[in-house]
């Protein structure tokens, strides 16, 4: 069993696109790379190119226009060839920008790494220092540094590098703090590694992508800034020229010979633009979240693209009737089904459990019912969900919204992330009411308080103005339930409502749900991975595995005599109080054949 799992991963790793081909897939980034390569190659080859000496002055030949004889881009006020100066100037600008980036990245990352890993006093001292540097407006500090060191290209380089150190230090520290508290760092310590070894061999490899991303997004910036200092006359000193000082010198001739200042500006723009395009591409490749397409905006309703025309809804006594539901996820060009042909029905006032292990598709099934699966990448690819005898997916967006929170309400797993952190809990409950009923603010608030009392929150009048973070996990889940009750729904879909809670709290929340259901005659669809929870509250249960329902039936019946081998194994694997050490002996034969 373990072997089988291990070998399937081979195909996954080969199927993953290499970083390079991913980068080249990005058309803009490729364009940036090409432009940058051309500019870089020309700048690098400057000494061997058949161009005049950039510093040879010839006053008689001054201010020649573009495309004049022998001077493709004309000449400047001292008769120097602009093309030649442009090439040599780019060489200087690129060299300065890249060196400043390297210095800033090296020093900044080192500060960030040490500060984020050591924490405590070291962190405090280093970060207060960084704060000090950041307390100056960016360019102002560069100016002050140049003022001390005196004008000059090298000094401008130092100034730009110093000014950018905080940027790296902060970014790297942020990531390092997160990594340093990760368990693999503790594990490395227990394996005998020293702090320095952990920092450079365990933490650094994980920070490196961030450093590269930060470098690729700042190098263009630094070229701009050095050009700026040179433009002000504080960078490159004559006769040496970088793009900024060419622009600065040309500025005086803006009205008589605009090409002298426009051309170097265009060059800076082309250079920085190509670097930024490439930098964005690099970031997209290296940032794993973007790679997985996680940062796409989900639509308000999951996309529906059914393979077959939906069958007409048959009349039944069920208030929720799911037939042949298939929900898929788009992975690149492929569409992979996560829920395959799931059918079940929920009768009025009934409690049904949907149970399965992680990845079984139970949550996706629950979210699909009202089109709440994040889309992209989710797509409903087949089946119907009938509520009140009408297919949900045939409804308009507005039609689906009218069901959400009114006829059918959801209770989600982790109330800390599912409640809005910036709104008071009372407002969030009131909002659920006003989304479907036309009532005034005062009345909505009064009803929110009443709902909070019904879900067992003491001092509801005071707690109504609390923010979610001011409540305990159990209380927050009660708020989640109050929100679901706001419009007296017929169906509540509870997706692992107690998984994030302690057992004693779980027991109370389950009691609450059960009592409310009986009082109000609601139907409850309970998604869980815990057979104990199912046994406690559900009338019927369906077992899911790999996106399919493998077995369904009355809870007591199914638990006592499971028919499907998977269900049998699953139930056998649940340890129960009172079994004691006998448990291990009863499960041992189940896995006997799996051993090598």
């Amino acid at each position: 069993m373990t072997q089988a799992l291990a070998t399937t991963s081979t195909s996954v790793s080969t199927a993953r696109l290499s970083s390079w081909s991913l980068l080249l897939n990005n058309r803009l980034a490729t364009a940036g790379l090409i432009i940058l390569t051309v500019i870089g190659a020309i700048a690098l080859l400057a000494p061997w190119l058949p161009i005049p000496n950039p510093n040879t002055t010839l006053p008689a030949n001054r201010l020649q226009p573009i495309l004049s004889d022998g001077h493709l881009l004309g000449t400047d006020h001292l008769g120097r060839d602009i093309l030649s100066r442009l090439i040599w100037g780019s060489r200087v600008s690129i060299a300065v920008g890249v060196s400043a980036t390297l210095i800033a990245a090296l020093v900044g990352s080192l500060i960030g790494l040490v500060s984020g890993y050591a924490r405590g006093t070291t962190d405090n001292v280093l970060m207060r220092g960084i704060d000090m540097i950041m307390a100056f407006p960016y360019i102002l500090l560069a100016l002050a540094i140049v003022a001390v060191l005196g004008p000059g290209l090298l000094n401008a380089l130092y100034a730009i590098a110093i000014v950018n150190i905080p940027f790296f230090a902060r970014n790297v520290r942020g990531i390092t703090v997160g990594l340093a508290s990760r368990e693999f760092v503790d594990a490395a310590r227990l394996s005998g590694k020293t702090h320095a070894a952990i920092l450079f061999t365990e933490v650094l490899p994980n920070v490196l992508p961030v450093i590269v991303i930060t470098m690729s997004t700042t190098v263009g910036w630094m070229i701009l800034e050095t050009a700026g200092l040179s433009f002000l006359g504080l960078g490159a000193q004559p006769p040496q020229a970088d793009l900024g000082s060419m622009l600065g010198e040309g500025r005086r001739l803006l009205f008589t010979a605009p090409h002298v200042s426009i051309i170097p500006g265009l060059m800076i723009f082309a250079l920085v633009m190509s670097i930024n395009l490439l930098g964005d591409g690099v970031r997209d490749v290296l940032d794993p979240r973007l790679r997985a397409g996680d940062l796409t905006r989900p639509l308000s309703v999951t996309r529906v693209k059914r393979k077959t025309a939906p069958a007409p809804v048959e009349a039944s006594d069920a208030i929720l009737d799911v037939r042949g539901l298939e929900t898929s996820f788009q992975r690149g060009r492929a569409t992979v089904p996560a829920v395959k042909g799931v059918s079940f029905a929920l009768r009025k006032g009934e409690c049904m459990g949907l149970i399965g292990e992680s990845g079984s598709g139970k949550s996706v099934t629950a979210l699909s019912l009202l089109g709440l699966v994040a889309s992209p990448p989710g797509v409903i690819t087949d089946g119907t969900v009938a509520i009140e005898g009408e297919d949900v997916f045939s409804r308009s967006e507005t039609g689906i919204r009218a069901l959400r929170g009114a006829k059918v309400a959801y209770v989600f797993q982790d109330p800390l992330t599912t409640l809005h952190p910036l709104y008071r809990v009372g407002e969030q409950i009131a909002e659920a009411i006003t989304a479907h009923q036309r009532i005034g603010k005062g009345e909505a608030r009064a009803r929110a308080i009443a709902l909070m009392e019904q879900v067992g929150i003491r001092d509801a009048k005071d707690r109504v103005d609390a923010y979610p973070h001011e409540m305990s996990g159990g209380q927050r889940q009660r708020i989640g339930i109050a929100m679901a009750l706001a419009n007296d729904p017929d169906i509540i879909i509870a997706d692992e409502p107690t998984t994030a809670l302690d057992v004693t709290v779980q027991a109370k929340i389950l009691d609450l749900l059960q009592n409310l259901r009986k009082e109000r005659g609601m139907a409850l669809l309970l998604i869980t991975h815990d057979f104990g929870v199912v046994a406690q509250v559900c009338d019927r249960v369906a077992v899911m595995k790999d996106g399919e329902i493998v077995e369904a039936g009355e809870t007591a019946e199914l638990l006592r005599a499971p028919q499907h081998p998977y269900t049998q194994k699953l139930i056998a694997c649940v340890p129960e109080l009172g079994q004691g050490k006998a448990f291990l002996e009863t499960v041992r034969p189940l896995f006997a054949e799996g051993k090598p």
Partner: protein
Amino acid sequence: MGGYILKRLAYAVPVIIGLSIIVFGIMAAIPGSTALAILGSFATPENVERVNRELGLDLPIWQQYFVWVGNILQGDFGHSYILRRPVLDEILERFSATLILAGASLILCSIFGILAGVVSAVRQFGWTDRIVTFFVLIGISTPAFWLGLLFILIFAVQLRVLPASGMYAVYGGGDLPDLLRHLILPAVTLAIVATGVIARLTRAAMLEVLRQDYVRTARAKGLDERKVIYRHAFKAALVSIIPVIGIQAGFVMGGAVYIETVFQWPGIGAMLVNAISTRDIILVQGGVLLVATTYVLINLLTDVAQALLDPRLKT
């Protein structure tokens, strides 16, 4: 909230003290004697010694610092020997011009940056998004000082619709419309880069927030999409947008250095560039300290604004 503001103010004090030390230290480290710069060709040894004594430059460096700070606390920023007037008068006059310019561009870039970012996140991968993304890239890749020159060429030289330089017309100007006409080009130039940065981060923040569980909760309640986006997602995104605006405030104040030089705007940035080249150290000291302190206060404001928005930050 009051407690939080006090705490944050208390935190700003050591930062400002630190700033003053850095500013003083940097200026003290500048090679070349101040007295020589002041006296120029009159620099006989006796004269130098006299000037040093008058300015307190013969004292140990830490005493000089305390004298300097003490004077500043009494409103005495020293005297510029090059401009032959008190530093405070000069920097206040210059600073108000910079505040007008920087304030106008900050307003411009905040409005357009946030708008563009939100629209482009909501219409992700659509045409609006592509156009915004493209212009944002152009914005952050263009040297502002060059863009200023282009604008002068186009709007002042070719089209002759806007003035090329200065803050007021030389003859017959001085009223508000005149100021605004002069303000347009430099403020827009200065705002363009910052708009790009804000738009980019707003877009990213919105996309991040739209993925959060609480946005799904808002949808599960049956809220219409406008409310989901503007009430739930945007408010949460604003928490990470506000500090970016704070950083951009520093950026436009610093960037004013170029823009003021290009458009000959009589602000503190142009003053600093001149003062550095004439080695008017006392003027540079005062100017840098004033701008940096303002920036610290702006950061304080953004922190407070952020805490007003996000109750979790108040503690």
